[in-house]
């Protein structure tokens, strides 16, 4: 058994763009004769993945982050055998995903895709989960037991007989995760585990993933937009942009590589253009993010700098010179979000 549970090697994936003749032709509605003849004319391609390679170790929690449209979903779907890559090699638990998709699918569980996580509105929550358990090869008794257990874990046992339509958005998310926990497979692919969940429940889910998955030795690959979540949960993080992985490593490695320095955070009142421009021209500054608030131009600056003390004193001097009122000041370690902004974002916020 190899050390790596997922091997992605030089994967390319592009989508064809079809020509459009009025509303709905891409779906073949009504005018299928015309559409068949004309729409089959491809109008070019959209390159989603341009040579992606990485490996995920067993029992690792691995995060994939990146801007929307960068190729995260495409990548996860390629691993999950829902997309055929144009070129490249993908292996899950020793099985070639492209050549033996059914065998590979037995090793993994895709969670969270689809509006209702792929649940059927006509079956109750319990029955839906039982169905998923059956699809993964458990027998009736076992499927029923697992469904019950999993509903307990996500705190939805009181709604076991309800339809998925009756759930609030947070509960829907929890249900999607329940589907994930139902099969004992070595790899979980989770799409945005805590999106839409309130902070309290989000923490519960993250703790569950961190402790339970680790305990059972399950590898988790998840996508997220919350950098603090990636930092908290993941052993390693991959940042993908424009179809390529531009960074890969543990949170500490990424911080060391991309944000050599510290963050000076300052919140001040009455910060105007001239003050900002002067601040931006300070040497030693690697990256600045500026956040304004309405009313009275309350501004929050997150300054990534090589020389925090010097920068702090400079910025304070500048702000005082321009009669800003300083409400809050702090020097802290850069977070993963700072790394993300530095790599992906535009210069100077």
């Amino acid at each position: 058994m190899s050390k790596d549970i997922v091997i992605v090697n030089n994967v390319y994936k592009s989508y064809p763009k079809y020509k459009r003749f009025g509303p709905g032709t891409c779906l073949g509605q009504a005018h299928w004769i015309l559409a068949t003849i004309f729409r089959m004319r491809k109008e070019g391609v959209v390159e989603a993945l341009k040579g992606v390679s990485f490996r995920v170790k067993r029992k690792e929690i691995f995060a994939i982050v990146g801007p929307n449209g960068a190729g995260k979903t495409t990548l996860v779907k390629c691993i999950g055998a829902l997309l055929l890559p144009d070129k490249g090699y993908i292996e899950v638990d020793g099985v070639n995903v492209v050549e033996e998709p059914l065998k590979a699918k037995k090793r993994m569980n895709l969670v969270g895709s689809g509006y209702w996580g792929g649940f059927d509105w006509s079956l109750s929550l319990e029955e839906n989960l039982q169905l998923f358990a059956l699809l993964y090869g458990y027998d009736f008794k076992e499927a029923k037991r697992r469904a019950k257990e999993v509903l307990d874990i996500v705190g939805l046992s009181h709604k076991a007989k309800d339809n998925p339509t009756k759930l609030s958005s947070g509960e829907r998310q929890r249900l999607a995760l329940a589907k994930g926990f139902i099969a004992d497979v070595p790899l979980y692919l989770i799409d945005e585990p805590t999106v839409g969940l309130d902070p309290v429940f989000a923490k519960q889910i993250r703790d569950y993933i961190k402790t339970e998955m680790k305990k059972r030795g399950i590898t988790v690959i998840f996508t997220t937009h919350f950098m603090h979540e990636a930092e908290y949960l993941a052993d390693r993080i991959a940042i993908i942009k424009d179809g390529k992985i531009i960074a890969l490593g543990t949170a500490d490695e990424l911080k060391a590589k991309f944000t050599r320095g510290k963050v000076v955070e300052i919140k001040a009142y009455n910060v105007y253009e001239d003050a900002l421009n002067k601040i931006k021209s300070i040497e030693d500054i690697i990256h600045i993010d500026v956040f304004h608030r309405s009313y009275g131009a309350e501004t929050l600056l997150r300054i990534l700098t090589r020389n925090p003390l010097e920068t702090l004193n400079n910025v304070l001097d500048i702000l005082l010179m321009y009669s800003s009122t300083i409400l809050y000041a702090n020097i802290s370690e850069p977070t993963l979000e700072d790394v993300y902004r530095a790599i992906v974002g535009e210069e100077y916020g």
Partner: protein
Amino acid sequence: MNLFKDLRIVYYFIKRYFRVWTYFKVNFVLELIQVVIDLATMAIIASAAGKYISYMLKAYGGDYFAFIVLGLVCNQLLSVALTAPRSAIEDAFWGRRIEILFSSPVNPTFLVAAFSIGPIVRESVKTLIYLLTAILLGLSTKPLNILSTVVFFTGFLACMGIGLISASTLYLLEAKGGSDPVNWIVSIVARLLSGLYYPLNILPEWCRWLSLIVPHTYVFDAERRILLGSVSGESSLPIHSVFVALGFSPVLADLVLLAIYAGVVLPLSYYLIRKGFEKALRDGRLSWWS
């Protein structure tokens, strides 16, 4: 493939289908009432027009009411075979379940077939009620025998094949949200030229060649001969004459042709639907984007 486990999945699909069907309880009852009313209409037409047509129905026993009812019963069941696979996939597509179902370790073609069982069971129930009502209204046929079952089953398989091809166009031709070329052609020909409402003798010779395209023609012809008329009789389809000349009955002709039809269409449909899924996987159009 562990057949037992997969059959359990089928149970869930059927359960689900019935949940959907009976969710709107009043609608369920109305549908059944509709069946009875349709039948009554047919009975009235038959009693009014029957005697004028019966001379054409010699091969089929001469009873117009039985002729039509038998045709409609077979048609109902064949139609469901034609439409079920495609509607199964479309339902999962629009309900956004298709990706999750696809990502589970079950052969997708099997899932499509399993999904189709629900509608088939439903139509069978309706058909049963139809038949019972018809019998009450005076339908009399010869008892069902093995031959009629075999003929029907073969025809059903042929229609399932066409249904799967129709389903494959969802991805091969991107024909979603409406009808597809296969189903369209088949339903038009079946309605006009398969002898559903009237015997084929009415139609000109060249039309009868077109009728050979759809399995319905063979099924109607054979079932009516077996259950109403006589197994050996004069030919009504152009192709029959060959068999009759060789001393075989037209029913045998129908059965053989159906078997060839199914034998060709089923493997072709399996191939096409796999190709369809492959195309969907390559183009990323299995589902709506995320």
